[in-house]
């Protein structure tokens, strides 16, 4: 009886455990193992050989990898920051019920419902130098200098444009999370602050923002993790170019895996991405979460 009771808890968590092991642990372990191998699918005649730390050594001594990490940081920080700022502004604006707010909310969600590949094609069309509306608009307002070289072919403009396209797609997600957070903040603290004579900026800084921290943490962590893996819009919009100006870690991993078929080195790149994701998550939990639990 005692034994049965002791194992009953285990029985309850078993399905989740199996799920985690199958979906997460097995592929992760497999990737870790492969990252220590010299394995090229194009050259099965060379066999699968132990590589020791050589894939990682190459990863950390190769200047291209370091540049790629830099570009990935640029993309992640740029897109997450933009999405957070714009998302927070929209969420605050939508936090008051007005006539037709549900329709506005639904419309705002549209970009988030579109597949990233389609988003890539849409933005390529929008930015087309011949018939794209953005270029037409820039020319109309006298900024034709910006359009002399197509934005996606300009090494200094291509990444900001990718960030913009990514923010266009995922800001609605941030809005959704923050709006749910705003709705869960009780009215009493605002009432007390109002009685104490706090202005709207003070109420925002000292009540809304602190109480929204956990929602912001959720939005930022999820978006950071997905931004680190950005591939679709890079593939469709720039193919990693011009030059290497938009080649991110995920794209680099893809190129090594599916153009060079170098499975060992590609796995090492993926492990690096995984490590960066963990570091980002811990940092966010410390900085935004502040180590406190607001639940």
């Amino acid at each position: 009886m005692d034994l049965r009771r002791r194992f009953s808890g285990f029985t309850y968590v078993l399905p989740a455990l199996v799920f985690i092991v199958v979906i997460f642990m097995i592929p992760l372990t497999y990737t870790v193992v492969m990252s220590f191998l010299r394995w090229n699918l194009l050259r099965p005649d060379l066999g699968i050989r132990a590589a020791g730390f050589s894939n990682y050594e190459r990863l950390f001594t190769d200047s291209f990898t370091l540049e790629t990490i830099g570009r990935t940081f640029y993309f992640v920080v740029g897109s997450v920051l933009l999405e957070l700022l714009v998302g927070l502004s929209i969420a605050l604006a939508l936090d008051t019920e007005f006539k037709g707010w549900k329709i506005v909310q639904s419309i705002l969600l549209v970009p988030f419902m579109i597949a990233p590949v389609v988003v890539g094609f849409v933005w390529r069309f929008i930015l087309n130098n011949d018939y794209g509306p953005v270029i037409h608009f820039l020319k109309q307002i006298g900024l034709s200098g910006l359009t002399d070289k197509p934005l996606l072919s300009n090494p200094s403009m291509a990444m900001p444009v990718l960030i913009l396209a990514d923010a266009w797609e995922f800001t609605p997600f941030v809005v959704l999370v923050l709006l749910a957070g705003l709705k869960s903040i009780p009215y009493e603290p605002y009432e007390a602050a109002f009685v104490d004579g706090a202005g709207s900026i003070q109420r925002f800084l000292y009540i809304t923002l602190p109480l929204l921290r956990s929602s912001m943490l959720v939005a930022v962590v999820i978006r950071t993790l997905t931004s680190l893996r950005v591939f679709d819009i890079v593939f469709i919009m720039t193919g990693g170019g011009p030059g290497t100006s938009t080649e991110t870690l995920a794209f680099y991993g893809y190129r090594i895996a599916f153009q060079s078929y170098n499975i060992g080195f590609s796995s090492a790149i993926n492990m690096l991405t995984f490590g960066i994701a963990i570091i980002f998550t811990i940092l966010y939990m410390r900085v935004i979460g502040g180590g406190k639990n607001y639940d």
Partner: protein
Amino acid sequence: MRSKFVLLMVLLLLVSCFASPLRLSSEVGIHTDAWKTRMPGFTAEKGVEVSIQQFPYANYLDQLMLGYTAGRVDIDVPYISMLWYPALATAGYISPISDIPGYDRLNESDIPGIRNTKLNGKTYIIPYMNELGGIIYRKDLFEDPKEKANFLAKYGYELRPPQTLEQYEDVAEFFNRPPDLYGVTLMGRRSIFLATHFMQRLWANGGALLDLNMRPIFNSEAGVQALKEVERMFQFANPAARNYDFQEALNEFISGRSAMAEIWTTGMFYVEDASRSSIVGKGGFVGFPRPEEKLGEKLPMLYISWGFSVSSAAPDKQAALEWLIYVTDTKNQVEAAPTGNIPARFSSLNSAELALSFPWIKDFALAMENCIPTPIVPLIPEGGSIVSGIIAPAVSEFLSGSKTAEKALNDAVKEVDRLMRDGGYY
């Protein structure tokens, strides 16, 4: 009762063994559509059923590689790009077609570029579609008396499809009248398409990717010159062309917005497609130009070919060979061509029947006879990685101004050198 059941099962098993179809695979594309029209005829004539699996081009090779690696490919005759066979053959996933009894009936001497299909003297792929990288041009503009007179007055020689690199630049400059008409359409997006512009000029200037010892040598004077020529040509192209891939470049040309397109022969099918082209009947093809001093020489020219290979695991290689003989036969190639294929045999290219469907085919055949058809990537397993993964980014880095021509090529050479060392070439 029981013995009858066992007998029935054995019979069913035997029937299923004998009736198993020949399993083909391919990308989704117009030349595949062409040979698919031959499948019913083959079954009727040879009594062998044929089935086909098609994949989008973008992930066809991945599907093949991953499937073969995992040992779960159920394909007897993969229709593949010539660039892929060295990797598949080195890995032992496809077997030599020339080892199948009766191979001689294929008459390989009728197929231009056949030398590219051999590894250690054995043939691994039989080309079905052959094409060359060259220039598609607007015949109506080149034949316009007013344009001819203006060109003569400006450049001092007659306007004609460019034979030399110098003429090519002159003609591109002459017709460059943005935004309504551009001199040339190029493919500037970082991809293997962009690499074709560099490779054609590298070869034309006497350079090469690798030497005989497989060491990279493209950071030569010819390489630097080739890069600079590519950059100069972009002056006469739509600025948007810096992010064009093959389809976008083609769309610009068939909408009548450029005088020339540096592309390959398949583009002519799109020119002649009345459902999307505004220049039907106005297109011509010419092989890629060369420096004036090399006129008349046989030089390497970008050669693109797709063909049939045979899986090592194919249970009935004789049936596979019968299909290859049937589908690449001159008569069948000529009949299938109008669906969207440029036949791989000289006998097909020179057929009067084909010339009726494709008036431009004689120019293509001429270019084919006067060049050394050369695949864009070296025919080694690492070939694709070198051109797509290293050369294309290097060209893009130079064009975007991130690196000088010398630096871009030197860095690329270092990468290729590492790749070749890893591959055990030296």
